[in-house]
């Protein structure tokens, strides 16, 4: 991705999941190590609903799955779970280097607390939002901004009111897979704008290094992969929005 003055990144995420879930005690130890950076914490709970198809009973089980912790300005967030660690940065985005260093440091704290190190999935997800001004236009042709749009049959000249497209595709390096979602944000966060989400998730679930240095080398390499996907998805007219 070129260096844009107004990067459209709403959320940037580095996510690592482990083979063997950690214990709650391990999670607590990790939280202590991360408390300075993320002073606010809230519990995360999974809800499991089981239907008994003979008697019609419904059984609901709440299970603590970890914690969502956040910085004082609420822009840095981490999900500390038994199954792994997610480090995220909301807008304003401060660049890949900062996110990468933060995620690496968080991972070190998580591993020391939980005594787990072997990741089984690594992923880098960038949720971009293109805020496009209507500027007097009745509708905005999506293809002027995105190269990844729904192909609708020609039954009406009226503008699209909403859309959602999702594709999953392997990258040239087949160890990496990419999920791309394009959809409209309704209602748009800005007045007089159409907002399009472009959600890019590049992940890998095989051949994951067990050694930390090699693991983070692989994650560093995702930067170029996800940038290539982003640039392939947008037009020059979209790029002008970020200058």
């Amino acid at each position, binding site marked *: 991705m070129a260096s844009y003055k107004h990067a459209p990144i709403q959320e940037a995420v580095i996510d690592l999941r482990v083979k063997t879930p950690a214990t709650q005690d391990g999670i607590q130890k990790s939280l202590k190590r991360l408390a300075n950076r993320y002073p606010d914490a809230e519990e995360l709970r999974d809800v499991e609903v089981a239907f008994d198809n003979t008697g019609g009973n419904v059984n609901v089980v709440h299970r603590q799955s970890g914690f969502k912790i956040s910085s004082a*300005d609420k822009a840095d967030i981490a999900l500390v779970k038994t199954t792994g660690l997610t480090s995220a940065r*909301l807008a304003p985005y401060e660049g890949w280097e900062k996110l990468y260093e933060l995620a690496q440091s968080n991972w070190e704290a998580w591993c020391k607390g939980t005594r787990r190190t072997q990741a089984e999935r690594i992923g880098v997800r960038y949720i971009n939002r293109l805020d496009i001004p209507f500027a007097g236009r009745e509708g905005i042709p999506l293809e002027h901004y995105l190269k990844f749009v729904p192909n609708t049959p020609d039954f009406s000249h009226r503008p699209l009111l909403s859309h959602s497209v999702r594709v999953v595709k392997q990258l040239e390096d087949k160890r990496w897979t990419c999920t791309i979602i394009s959809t409209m944000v309704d209602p748009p966060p800005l007045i007089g704008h159409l907002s399009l989400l472009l959600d890019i998730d590049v992940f890998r679930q095989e051949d994951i290094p067990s050694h930390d240095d090699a693991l983070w080398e692989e994650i560093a390499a995702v930067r170029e992969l996800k940038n290539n996907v982003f640039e392939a998805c947008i037009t020059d007219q979209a790029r002008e929005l970020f200058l």
Partner: protein
Amino acid sequence: MISDSSTERVGQYANDLLKADLAFRRGEGLLFPATRTSAQKTARAKEDLSSQLFESRAAGKIATAQIAMHLDRDWRDGFFRQLDSLLDADEWEPDDEPVTQLSYKTFLRTIVHLGATRRPGIGASEDGQLIASWRNGDDRLVIISGQNDRVRWSVRRNIDGELEVATGVTTAARLPRILESFDCEKLYKA
């Protein structure tokens, strides 16, 4: 000059505006519902004020993160300092409602739509609406952000030696056109 540190709960001018709007509000309860029953007040008093103020500060910062790519970084950081000061438990009137998420949302949408690059002084109404005020000498602009993009505005401008005062309720989308005739950009643009 506008003071960036003017984070008092309700500034002098905003107080005047609130008084002036009382009668207006009685007739416009649907737009800015503010009346609470005594039972509601009692229930609220039992809740932890610090926790409510924390939630309100967090809501303001999370709402800001949604549009932070359109804000100057210094503006954002300064606004967060103002929020921390405004929603300080030691200074807060226990009967007042902390600023609501919907009010933050309207405020931030209004700021971006206006292109307001000069940070306002902020305060809060007793029913949890964020008050933004810009001031330059005797000239003032106050915007109170309700829910769903509804805003109450008030302008005091000295134009060619003649004092003009106006107030009204509109949508955030319409606000720039309304303020245009009062030449208010000088107040909210750096």
